[in-house]
């Protein structure tokens, strides 16, 4: 008798921490507009790995992923309307367009459905947004360099694809960082298009015109390994090159670290952000007070966690993080 009482108290305590009672009957859908690159594939895989156990454990009743056959806003709008008809309680969206889905999102909100957009966010005010702070990615690079090289020095900047807003935003973050740490100076800038081969060619092209005392290279991700190859091919000492969590970059870094104690820093966004969006939706359904605007935590690889992070990075992929309920609650608390 006594034992049973203790057990039941324990069970209640256990259940209340995972908020099982409130959302166990709720169904969450993922509306995705594109699955054609490794980042999106990793995003969908992460969704599966995190939501399947959550469904089995009874945290939510269902967490189904839907991808449109073609990357078109009108198709995704129709898809969202179909999800409304299927009676989902929350829809998590990676949107094809920030504005063209607003009508469908509004229909969902009017039907009492929670809409959480992430990565590709929607502007409709009734939806939640989990946005990427690309500026912060730029600022972090300079903060790291200032700590590592207190004396400052000359920098080479590798930018992304010209004319794309992401490139502008990361660059603006780097400018912010330069204003904060005036001892650093960008002496050259090339477009690496977030691709190792393009970056390698671009850096090889500009190297002869640059002074010998380049102390570091600031980057946007997907270009660090190419830059390193270009420096090595030119017979110059490889400076501190900021990396972007790509597997080839981290592998090269590890080789250098083992050979000569090379030190740098790497930052990007994890495809597992879909799981963050899942838990955010679950929390809102649970009645938690969640601010409408959230920011995706950046994934940083440092000298200390390089080996661990490389181990969770698939071949040809990007370092991934799958978020837990606790991580999500921390992110929500931080945004308040």
């Amino acid at each position, binding site marked *: 008798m006594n034992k049973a009482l203790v057990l039941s108290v324990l069970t209640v305590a256990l259940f209340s921490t995972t908020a099982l009672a409130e959302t166990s009957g709720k169904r969450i859908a993922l509306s995705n507009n594109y*699955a054609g690159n490794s980042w999106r594939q990793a995003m969908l895989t992460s969704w599966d790995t995190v939501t399947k156990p959550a469904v089995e454990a009874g945290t939510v009743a269902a967490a*189904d992923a*839907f*991808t*449109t*056959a*073609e990357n*078109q*806003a*009108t*198709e995704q*709008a*129709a*898809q969202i*309307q*179909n*999800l*409304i*008809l*299927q*009676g989902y309680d929350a829809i998590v969206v990676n949107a094809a*367009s*920030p*504005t*063209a*889905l*607003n*009508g*469908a999102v*509004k*229909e969902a909100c009017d*039907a009492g459905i929670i809409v959480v957009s992430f990565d590709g966010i929607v*502007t*409709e005010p009734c939806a939640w947004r989990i946005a990427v702070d690309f500026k912060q990615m730029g600022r972090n690079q300079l903060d790291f360099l200032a700590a590592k090289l207190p004396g400052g020095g000359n920098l080479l900047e590798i930018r992304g694809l010209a004319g794309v*807003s992401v490139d502008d935003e990361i660059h603006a973050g780097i400018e912010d960082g330069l204003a904060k740490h005036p001892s650093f100076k960008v002496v050259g800038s090339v477009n690496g298009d977030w691709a190792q081969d393009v970056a390698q060619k671009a850096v090889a092209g500009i190297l002869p015109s640059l002074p010998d005392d380049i102390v570091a290279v600031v980057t946007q991700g997907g270009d660090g390994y190419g830059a390193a190859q270009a420096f090595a091919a030119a017979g110059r000492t490889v400076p501190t090159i900021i990396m972007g969590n790509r597997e080839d970059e981290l592998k090269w870094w590890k080789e250098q670290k083992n050979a000569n104690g090379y030190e740098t820093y790497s930052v990007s966004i994890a495809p597992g952000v879909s799981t963050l969006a899942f838990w955010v939706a679950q929390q809102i359904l649970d009645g938690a007070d969640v601010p409408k605007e959230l920011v995706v935590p950046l994934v940083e690889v440092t000298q200390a966690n390089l080996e661990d992070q490389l181990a969770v990075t698939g071949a040809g992929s990007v370092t991934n993080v799958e978020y837990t309920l606790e991580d999500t609650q921390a992110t929500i608390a931080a945004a308040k």
Partner: protein
Amino acid sequence: MSFLTAERLRLLVPVLSLALLLGAVFYLQPRTMSYTGLNLLFNLAVPITLATIAQMLIMMVNDLDLSMGTFVSFVACVTATFLQSDPIIGFLILAGCIAAYAALGVIIHLRNLPSIVVTLGMSFVWGGLAVLLLPTPGGTAPDWIRWLMTSKPPLVPMAIVASVLIAVVAHFVVMRSAIGVVLRGVGGNERSVQRAGWSVVRARALAYALAGLFAVLAGMTLVGLTTSADANIALRYTLLSIAGVILGGGEFVGGRVSPIGAVVGALTLTLAAAFLSFLRISPDWQIGAQGAILIVVLALRLALNRREARGTRK
């Protein structure tokens, strides 16, 4: 009497496939069997239906419009920007668009150019103009269009009322009016129309202008549903509109078109996507499944066409 049966047979396949799909959707998801359900199921079909009618008018004169998607996108951008802020300038631009379509018809006819080449070229023009107008997605739908597209008429949802209205208007213009006969005649036998004393160039210009008008309406209603625009919002409409016409019993040549069939075809396409989504087919298979539905319907039609041909020979 037998002619009527052939005509009806032609319409029978699309109507039956629509009814079958609708039955399947109702069975899979009883929630759709309601006022709101039907509206959600079909409201995004309204702009597709209008674009399909526009494409049908072009196909009626033996041409093909490959710029439909970019044109509708451009109209959507104009609707979300100028039509909202300066309605007069907005309407002037849209009227200019219709005039441009008429001019295209004239150029294609006079220079004897293949329409697919001209419209493919125009698709880059419309696409470029749309990006110039809205480099980043945005804009706002004019209140009256938004009101119209979210209106809740009694008993029957907006999407159904609009589809029936479009079908009836297009049917009367194309099948029942005197000018409609001439327009279809241009596709069927251009020379005999000319010999009968009609101006073929004028007829083609009119067909294109009408197509432009319906495409403009498609763009406007689309923005009414989405609330704002994007330069790439309707790229899918080029192929959807062609598929809708064919599915609805139209043919690429010969002036054989059916406005009611085209509307039914557009609704069937929309419903096919919903049906697959309700079936929970994995996205990898969805394009294939969508294609399979198209092939089944077209195969049915081909079989009926054969029967029809055998009937005439007897």
